[in-house]
């Protein structure tokens, strides 16, 4: 069990802290990250089970001891930093903005592959003379000469300030806005905006355009953990390892397909040899070849017996692989997506142990 402190906190924040709880896992429940996060976890085999919509906690089948805490992404980050939650899914944008470099939060998986959005500098369409940061710097300078300052609406003041300073734009004022940031210029609250964009629809509706070199951050959902909790809690680390393995195997599998073809040949070795000669049919490590037992009417002829060869290929080379299998005499080619792809170990788990400075448990 964790310290008395977090027990008390648990009671305060959730009203329950069941015996046998090993790990508290924050999963977004509201906002644009919520739906994709739940879908992602389900695809990883970590489906979040909630008894009722109103409950603030849930569980994950197959992972006893894990309490899923349903929160907003912003709150998950804060609670992970404070140690009230051990592990959580949050946005890289919020992490970089709020936690910056806080030592108490450790990134376990930086790109979970969903909730992608870019934090960008947006200026009015009508500023036809402004397409780069250099142009914007000139506009800021000329506003300053006339005693004004460039007003920038954003809900990411820290990232914005740092980026502008780094790009030599030092005279501007930040207009804090939590919602409707992109409407601020048209409404006259601000001159330009810095906001997240995914499709660009909202910014176009607000007659804004993105500067050519105005991308501050490419964001997506990430998995973070509390350094202290993971350093001291061996049991917690073990649960995190299992979660990381599933996530990693799922993400790695996403680009891979399992391809099976039937081929004629004299032996497993001969088929394997033929397929190993081309990179396209070599697959990730090499083919698995097995004898196919046929009915008399399609019996083995002079061309040899039937064999089934299976390879794991990257999606980018799928068509190549199929073409090459055909050339090699393959037929009945089936392709199925790979759900998980486990390697010998989990890279993320290794990276976590290294970052925490602890040895293998």
């Amino acid at each position, binding site marked *: 069990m964790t310290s008395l402190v977090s027990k008390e906190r648990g009671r305060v924040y959730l009203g329950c802290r069941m015996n046998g709880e090993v790990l508290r896992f924050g999963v977004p429940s509201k906002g644009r990250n919520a739906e994709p996060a739940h879908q992602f976890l389900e695809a990883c085999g970590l489906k979040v089970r909630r008894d009722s919509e109103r409950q603030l906690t849930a569980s994950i089948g197959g992972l006893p001891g894990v309490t899923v805490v349903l929160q907003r992404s912003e709150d998950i980050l804060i609670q992970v930093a404070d140690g009230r939650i051990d592990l959580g899914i949050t946005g890289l944008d919020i992490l970089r903005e709020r936690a910056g470099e806080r030592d108490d939060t450790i990134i376990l998986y930086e790109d979970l592959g969903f909730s992608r959005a870019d934090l960008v500098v947006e200026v009015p369409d009508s500023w*036809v*003379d402004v397409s*780069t940061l*250099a142009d914007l710097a000139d506009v800021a*300078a000329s506003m300053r000469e006339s005693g*004004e300052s460039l007003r920038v609406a954003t809900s990411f003041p820290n990232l914005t300030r740092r980026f502008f300073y*780094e790009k030599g734009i030092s005279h501007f004022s930040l207009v804090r806005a939590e919602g409707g940031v992109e409407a601020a210029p048209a409404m*006259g609250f601000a001159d330009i905006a810095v906001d997240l964009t995914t499709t660009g629809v909202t910014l176009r509706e607000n007659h804004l355009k993105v500067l*050519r070199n105005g991308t501050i951050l490419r964001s997506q959902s990430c998995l973070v953990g509390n350094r202290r909790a993971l350093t001291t809690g061996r049991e917690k680390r073990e649960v995190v390892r299992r979660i990381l393995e599933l996530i990693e195997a799922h993400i790695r599998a996403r680009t891979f397909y399992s391809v099976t073809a039937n081929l004629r040949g004299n032996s497993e070795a001969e088929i394997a040899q033929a397929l190993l000669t081309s990179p396209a049919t070599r697959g990730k490590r090499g083919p698995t070849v097995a004898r196919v037992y046929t009915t008399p009417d399609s019996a083995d002829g002079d061309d040899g017996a039937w064999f089934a060869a299976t390879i794991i290929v990257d999606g980018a080379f799928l068509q190549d692989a199929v073409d090459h299998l055909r050339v090699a005499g393959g037929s009945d080619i089936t392709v199925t997506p790979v759900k998980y792809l486990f390697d010998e170990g989990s890279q993320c788990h290794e990276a976590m142990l290294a970052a925490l400075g602890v040895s293998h448990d």
Partner: protein
Amino acid sequence: MERRPVERVRGTQDSWAPEAQHLAIIRQQLEETFASYGYSRIDVPVLEPSELHLRKSGLEIISKLYAFEDQGGRQLCLRPELTASVVRAFVAQPPPRLPVRLFSSGPVFRYERPSKGRYRQFTQSGVELIGADDSAADAEVISLAMHALDQLGLREYVVTLGHVGILGQLLTNLGVVGRLRTFFVENLEEARRRGVAAVRRRLVDLDPELFEQRAEAAPTVATDDRQVGQAVAGLLSAMGGDALGRRSESEVVERILLKQHPAVGASTVERALNFMDRLASIRGEPSTALAEGRALLVEYQLDDTPLSDLQRVVDLLEGFGADISNVKVDLGLGRGLQYYTGTVFEIDHPGLGSESQLCGGGRYDDLSRALGARQALPALGFAFGVERIRLALEAEGAAPRSVPAADVFVIPASQAQMAYAAQVAHRLRRAGLQTQLDVTARPLRNALTFADREGFRRVVVVGEAEARDGTLRLRDMTDSAESTISLDEIASLAPESR
């Protein structure tokens, strides 16, 4: 209830004796050397308006500013250095006669990635000499910095001299002004450290159109500017009356035309980058580096005033008694600060590894005007990093001895003698001995063990007899010899040399 210990802010330090003591001594000795040259103390606030640094400090400082909004909505910062504050104070209240010599010390704050020798809060101590433009002023300030280190007993430091006016001259000749000029001046240091290719990347990063657009500019059929203006105006009115926000149509049209016919073309930018590359590679003994510099200036048909100024500074330094064998010239030295206009210098210590800089300074003739003075005033100054000096002294083996917190430890044999023991302690202090009184009411044996472990050389014990007779028992902890002396004899006890 939260029971976790409250942690120190990242990048800050708790400094204990003897290091804390050593730091205080270094700072005091620096200030004494400054004062010996007739510089007077000025104290400036730790809190300043962010604007003070946004105006002229440049990227190096601004990107590391601890800035925040206070309860009244003011944009404030923790000072990242002392010079801007001192000049602000000077502009607000200019002294009647010039030049004026000032020194200041205290904590400064920079949001850096902490590492050994690099902290987010550190101590600067430095001088400003305002109102003197002759090279003799440069020589005085630089030799003062060297003298201050000599006084501290530091031996292996290296002074590097440069001059940002050389690049400034080329940029003026090329007609490079405004933001682009600032960019080049600020990035001279980057060219020296990472090469001109890194500067070029930064430039393209900032303005991806710089090279593409200017390459196209030449063959473009000269469009009538008026036609362009009309087309843009038509476009803007189609977008709606207030689409521009606070910007005016004429401003946008003007910039469009300026982008069509840039004052500074790609070839000019290339020329400036090439020059920077050459300049940044000139370094070495003053005479050789200056000769190389002169050849470069001849090649680019530039006036060699900055180099003859630098030559004069080197000559004067020698005349001022500075050890010139410690001095190098590096024409790529840019300091990364925007406000320097002439001579710049740094002092490094080879024993400190990657964070080797002990001191930085230079001439900033435009700063006072940027901060609101009616006219530009010649000025220069420098600042030492006090913690770095301590590390340098330590690297040369001059670490302070670990000494007990006091010369004498006074122990009352029992509670009844506490008042008398306090009197004795008071008399010892008046005699110039640093004296600690045991106020714990522990058994005598434990108190003696404590005194021994703490390293006290002398212990005074007062019991019933001593209190009655007006005497004290003095025990030398090194040989356990004891003697009884009277209160009046205390004055004859010499303070231990510490």
